[in-house]
Every structure is written in C-alpha cells, then in structure tokens.
C-alpha cells in the first residue's frame, strides 16, 4: 500500500492535533480546492513577529490533513519570515510520503492558506 496510508500517517489523519478552535487568533485565511472541494480554515496567533500557535478547521482528504498538520507543527514558534519561506519543495520534504502528481494540490492547499493568512496579517498591521 501507498506509504501515505501506513498506520502512523493514519493516526495523524484521524486525530490531527491542530484541528481545533483558536479563539485569540489574529490571522485568518480560508481556502478551497475546487477540484475536490477540500476546504481549510487556518487561524494563527502571531505575537512579536512570531507564530505562537496555529490551528485549522475544515474537511479534507488524508493528504491535505496530514500536510496541514505537519506544516502547522513546523511553523509554530517560527517567525513570519521563516514561515513565508516555506516552499512547496520543502513542504514535500517535510511530508515524506509518496504522493501522486494529482494530489500535490491537496498537499499545498495549506501553503496557500498560510501565505494568505500571513499577508492579510501584515497588511492589517501596516
């Protein structure tokens, strides 16, 4: 079986730690992948230029959920600049699962959400 569906990955998928509310968030973005209907609502709590905590809601497939989970784990504690530098390539490294070409878009939905949330945060603070 595709290594994506191995047990440890399925544990992340079934119980994503970052899937929760974040009441004191100050950056937000909502993205949709029109191909499959996946949606993600991303919330960040940013203080002194650093991402203190990150959370998401929405419904999505395993690739999208696991990718979101890993990206949010990665950006917590990082500066806005560092988070903005997370490229698609780095994300696929971080993910470390075999995904087919058709599902790269599922994996990168969170990246779009992250960039947009950070941008709107910075615009709001200008």
């Amino acid at each position: 079986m595709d290594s994506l569906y191995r047990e440890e990955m399925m544990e992340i998928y079934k119980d994503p730690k970052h899937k929760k509310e974040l009441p004191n968030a100050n950056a937000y973005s909502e993205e949709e992948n029109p191909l499959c209907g996946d949606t993600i609502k991303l919330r960040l709590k940013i203080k002194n230029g650093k991402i203190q905590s990150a959370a998401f809601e929405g419904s999505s497939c395993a690739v999208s959920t696991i990718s979101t989970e890993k990206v949010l784990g990665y950006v917590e504690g990082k500066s806005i600049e560092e988070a903005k530098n997370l490229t698609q390539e780095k994300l696929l490294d971080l993910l470390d699962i075999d995904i087919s070409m058709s599902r790269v878009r599922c994996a990168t939905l969170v990246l779009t959400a992250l960039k947009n949330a950070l941008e709107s945060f910075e615009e709001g603070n200008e």
Partner: protein
Amino acid sequence: MSRKNKINQKLDPFKIRKDFPIMGRDIEGSPLVYFDNAATSQKPKQVIDAITEFYSKNNANVHRGIHTLSENATRQYEESRTTLAKFLGANSPEELIFTNGTTHSVNHLSVGIKNLLSEGDEIITSNLEHHSNFVPWQRLCKERGAILKTIDITPEPNETSSDYSKKILDKIERFLSKKTKLVTISHVSNVTGSIIPIKEIASIVKGSDENILLLVDGAQSAPHIPINMRSLGCDFFVFSGHKMLGPMGIGGLWIRKNLMEKIEPGIVGGGMIEKVSLDKAVWAGAPYRYEAGTPNVAGAIGLAAAVKYLESVGMREINNHGRRLAKHTIELLEQIAGLKIIGPKDDDNRIGLISFYVEGTHPHDIAAILNSKGIAVRAGQHCAMPLHTELDLEASTRASFYLYNTNEEVDYFYRELKTALKVLK
C-alpha cells in the same frame, strides 16, 4: 469486422476483454480493474488497428487533393460519417457533424444559435448537467441578456427511477414559458447513471411550442443505450467518441435536418465555404459548413470502427450487462454502513454507473487506496459542481462499467473498498 450478429448470445465480457490490449497490464502489481469508463473507455484492437492502418496506408487531407490518397481519405471519412449516422438512427449522413467531442459540440451550438436568442428569452437546463452543457449556456445568456433557468432535479434518497422521471417531467413542464427558446439536458447523468426520459420531455416541450429547441447531451447515453434520432424527439444530440470505444478528439453533433440552415456555424475558416470574396463569405452546405479546418479523419475512422464493434455486441445487450453489474454492485454496497448511493437504486432506467460517498471519508483517499490495488475509479465532483453543492457533498466516488467489466471485478472492488474503509475510518 468478423464479430457480427450474435443477437441471441449473452454478452461475454471475458471474450470481449481479449480484444482490449490494455486489459493485460497491471497497476502497482495488481491486474488493472478499470471502473472509470464514464471518464473515458478503453479501446479494442479493431479501433487501434483502424487508426494505424489509416496513418500507415491512406493518410492525406480530405476534400482537397485530386490524388489517390486524398480520395481514399475522403471516402473513408465519409463512410465513417455514414456508419455513425446509421448508428444514431439519423435520417441522413448530412445531419451528422464531426467535432472534437461533447464539449466542442455544445460550444459550437452555443455560438450557432446566438442569433436566435434575444434579451429576456429563456434557456432551461438542469442542475445535474456536466459543466460542458452548462457553462456555455451560462455565458451565452449573460451575453444576450437572456435567462438561464436551472431546474433542480437533485435525486432524493430512496427515490425510485420512475418517481424520479416523473419529477423531472413535472419540473420541466412548470419551467416552460412563452420565452423559452431552448431546453438542454443530459440523456444519462454522469453522476447517478440514471436515464432521463427524453422522449417524454420532447413531447412536453414540443407540445408547448414546437419551435422550442431541444438539445440532448448524449455523452453518457451513446456509449450505453440504443439511440435513435428518428424517435428521440430532440433537435440536437451531442456525444464523445472516446467514451464509446473510439479515440480521443472525435465526437459528434447531430442537427435535425430542417434546422441545418438556421444554425450558424460556430467555427469558421477553411473547408466550410462555398465562396469567399474580400467582403463576404458564403457557407457551404451541411455538414461541411459546420466542419471548418482539417477534420480528425483518423479519429472518425477509429470511431466508425468502435461503433461497428458496439453494434456487433448489441447496444441493448451492452446496457443489460451494465445494469446487471450495477445491480450486483448496489447489492454489495448497501451492506456497508454509512455508505450512501447517489440517485435511484433500482436497475430499470440506468446504465452501469454508480456514485457513492461514505460518511467520514474523503473520495480521494478511497480512490488512492483502490488504485494501489489496481482499481481505477473516479473521485471528485465529476464536473458536476452544482449537483454536489446541492447534495452538500465535497465530492463522491464513482465506479462506471462497460462491456468488458465482470462480476468478479465488482467482487474484488467490494472487498478492497471494505479494506480501504477500515484503514480510513
């Protein structure tokens, strides 16, 4: 073609499979189980050979040269048109225009009938249309200040096919008005597999005003059920060759003969004119006025070979085989808790196509796990976003069958689906 006339014989998928070279391959170590036929069908060697032979022996442009090759190509192209016209039960070959496929045909028409549509006029369509029979009309209506009225024919849970048909007829009747210029609807839904009652729709539409045009999207019907333009009652019929054993990039647009002069060509250029001067052009007669540019000759020849193949098996038998597979699949799927099938479940008015979803799982994951076992299904919205929105679904999984699929494949699919759900839930 040697596999003629086996009218009384029940379709034997195992024998048919031998004609399809792709059936021998495996996917990730498992034999291919191809259940994505609604997206495109596989091709028998008869079709592949016909294309190879054209390019190896007769390739030339049509209606142009006086030389032997051009004449051969022209003859084969026109013979293909005749084969297709007969398959569709058209009155004459001139009614059949070769296009790239359904999407191309609908776009062609949406430009071609532009002048028949004025501000405030109405086009009726449904919310289960494929985007290709929806977006062109949406655009045209915007351009002309016309109104696109979309009937909601979302299937209810546990609705029978006959109740479903009645609902559709009822809604169309209520939506017709003095302003209606066109009714455009699928013959078979690519999400539910239900056959839409076109003959009855035609009699309601034409009964209300015989000038209202009726377009039928036959992308999913032409491959699966007997089609006859003389009795269907529509004015336009569009379809794709690649879904009915033919090659990609070829399909058709059938226009009722008496309308041919009224409909403008959607595409203009070479090969479709009588004469051109610096300030005007006169269109050639049908069907050439609708076939600007070099046509897909090899595609037409391949499609004719496909149609001969389908006829040798028999369209009724192909539909019955699809219904048998659907029945078997539905009986199995209904044993899975939390699984819901979209659309009527009886085996009356349908083809071998089933879409479903399972609470708490994403179709992409189901399709990816099935793929790792060699099974190809479609996951997504199947280019029918309005319907999925109405059903409040992000996506669904679709298994669609054709004449080479077997009960054994369905059993295997069912077992692997259950395993996949265990992983995901």
